[in-house]
């Protein structure tokens, strides 16, 4: 029997390559829009990869005072933009009996303010290595957990406050940590934010060195094509997502609009290789099984599997093989989709933004598509519904959301349609 408190989601916010708020993100998600384009943030002409999914039409002055902008690395700005939308959407701060010492903040990012680090070191070398010119905001701009700190300061939230880091699973771990802390009674509500701003020389250059990114420069419009036999790596994205996560009891007490329930989760490690997933996927199999057990749905009534699939040759197949083991022949009747085909890979922000996609699927009873995929890799070897090209309508009660990260970190989350 499960005696843990039910935990629900009551607010969300985003800034992504396919929409700078929930409304435009939702529209473009279900329209199957791509966020891809040539890199505009720096001169990428000598890089193996010259395209990415950038956030569009973002003017920091629309959200921050001029003085603030300089103090926040771009990853922090994105996080604060998404968090504001999520908090406002939830109405949490309007609750007159809110105990702000029981409202926490967990922020997540893969690497935080690397662009700041890059800029500060550039200045150092340009200024004849004069160490006096390091900026006093260097540290706070770079630190991953600054986001949690700034959110607490801005809104006076005095509950638990920290960051989780696990590469591309960072913000999925943040969600799991939030759920557990609420279940343990450590908080009534927790704001979770995942963000990443990796489109700069260091970000693209380092992932190019790993040969992790697609290099289809001549034909980049449909470069991100999970499960396609001609896929050649992931496409870098950027942005942030934020959630307000709350105990059901607290949400109902304040009459909140409940978007979905987080009904199960699991996390483990491959213990295989620092970047490559285990081809047999034995630990992601166990992880999904454990999440289903945690959600107490051993008959596996999943309607939509929101895959991690990033469009890499090894990762996509390992995940599909794991799904086959977990779901057997039932897999062909489940909608599988890879929204990274639209958004690119938001790294540390992927866990939250893709959880928001899962929630939107439940709200709208629609599965967003896997775009760009034309010729399905024959290694998949089974007739699956990969939701190619177009959104599909479906009765959705349960969504399984996978996120995996370099280091062999595996997470699975199960979202459930909320019914009173």
């Amino acid at each position, binding site marked *: 029997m499960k005696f843990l408190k039910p935990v629900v989601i009551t607010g969300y916010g985003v800034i992504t390559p396919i929409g700078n708020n929930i409304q435009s993100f939702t529209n473009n998600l279900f329209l199957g829009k791509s966020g891809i384009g040539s890199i505009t943030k720096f001169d990428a002409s000598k890089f193996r990869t010259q395209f990415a999914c950038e956030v569009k039409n973002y003017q920091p002055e629309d959200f921050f005072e001029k003085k603030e902008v300089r103090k926040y690395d771009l990853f922090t700005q994105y996080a604060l933009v998404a968090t504001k939308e999520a908090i406002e959407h939830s109405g949490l701060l309007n609750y007159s009996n809110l105990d702000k010492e029981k409202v926490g903040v967990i922020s997540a990012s893969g690497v935080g303010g690397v662009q700041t680090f890059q800029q500060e070191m550039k200045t150092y070398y340009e200024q004849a290595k004069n160490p006096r010119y390091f*900026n*006093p905001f260097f540290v*706070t701009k770079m630190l991953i957990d600054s986001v949690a700190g700034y959110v607490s300061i801005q809104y006076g939230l005095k509950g638990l406050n920290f960051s989780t880091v696990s590469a591309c699973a960072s913000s999925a771990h943040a969600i799991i940590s939030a759920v557990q802390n609420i279940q343990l009674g450590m908080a009534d509500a927790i704001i979770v934010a995942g963000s990443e701003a990796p489109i700069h020389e260091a970000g693209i250059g380092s992932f190019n060195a790993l040969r992790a990114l697609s290099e289809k420069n001549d034909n980049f419009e449909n470069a991100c094509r999970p499960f396609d036999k001609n896929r050649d790596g992931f496409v870098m994205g950027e942005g942030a997502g934020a959630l307000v996560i709350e105990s059901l009891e607290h949400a109902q007490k304040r009459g909140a609009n409940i978007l979905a329930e987080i009904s199960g989760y699991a996390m483990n490690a491959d213990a295989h290789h620092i970047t490559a997933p285990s081809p047999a996927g034995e630990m992601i199999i166990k992880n999904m099984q454990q999440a289903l057990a945690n959600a107490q749905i051993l008959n596996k009534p999943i309607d939509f599997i929101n895959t991690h699939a990033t469009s890499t040759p090894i990762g996509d197949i390992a995940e599909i093989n794991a799904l086959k083991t977990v779901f057997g022949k039932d897999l062909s009747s489940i909608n599988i989709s890879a929204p990274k085909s639209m958004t690119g890979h938001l790294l540390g922000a992927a866990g939250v933004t893709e959880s928001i996609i899962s929630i939107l699927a439940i709200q709208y009873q629609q599965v967003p598509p896997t775009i760009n995929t034309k010729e399905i890799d024959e290694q998949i070897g089974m007739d699956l519904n990969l939701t190619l090209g177009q959104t599909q309508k479906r009765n959705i009660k349960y969504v399984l959301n996978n996120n995996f990260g370099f280091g062999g970190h595996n997470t699975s989350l199960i979202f459930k349609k909320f019914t009173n």
Partner: protein
Amino acid sequence: MSEIAERVKKIIVEKLGVEETEITPEANFEMDLKADSLETVELIMEFEKEFNLVIPDEQADKIKTVGEAIAFLESNV
């Protein structure tokens, strides 16, 4: 206004996001221009960079107003 004062003013406007009219010689960085401790440190660093000099910490601690900053720079640049 001296050329040094003009350059000082420009830095303050940019770093503290204040209006030019607020930058009087008597304006105190922390009290009037609402600079926090890190922003004050940043201003000193920017003055060093702009005027290519070193402002020792014990000197920097004494610079509390716009006028004091200009006076220090005018006699040391």
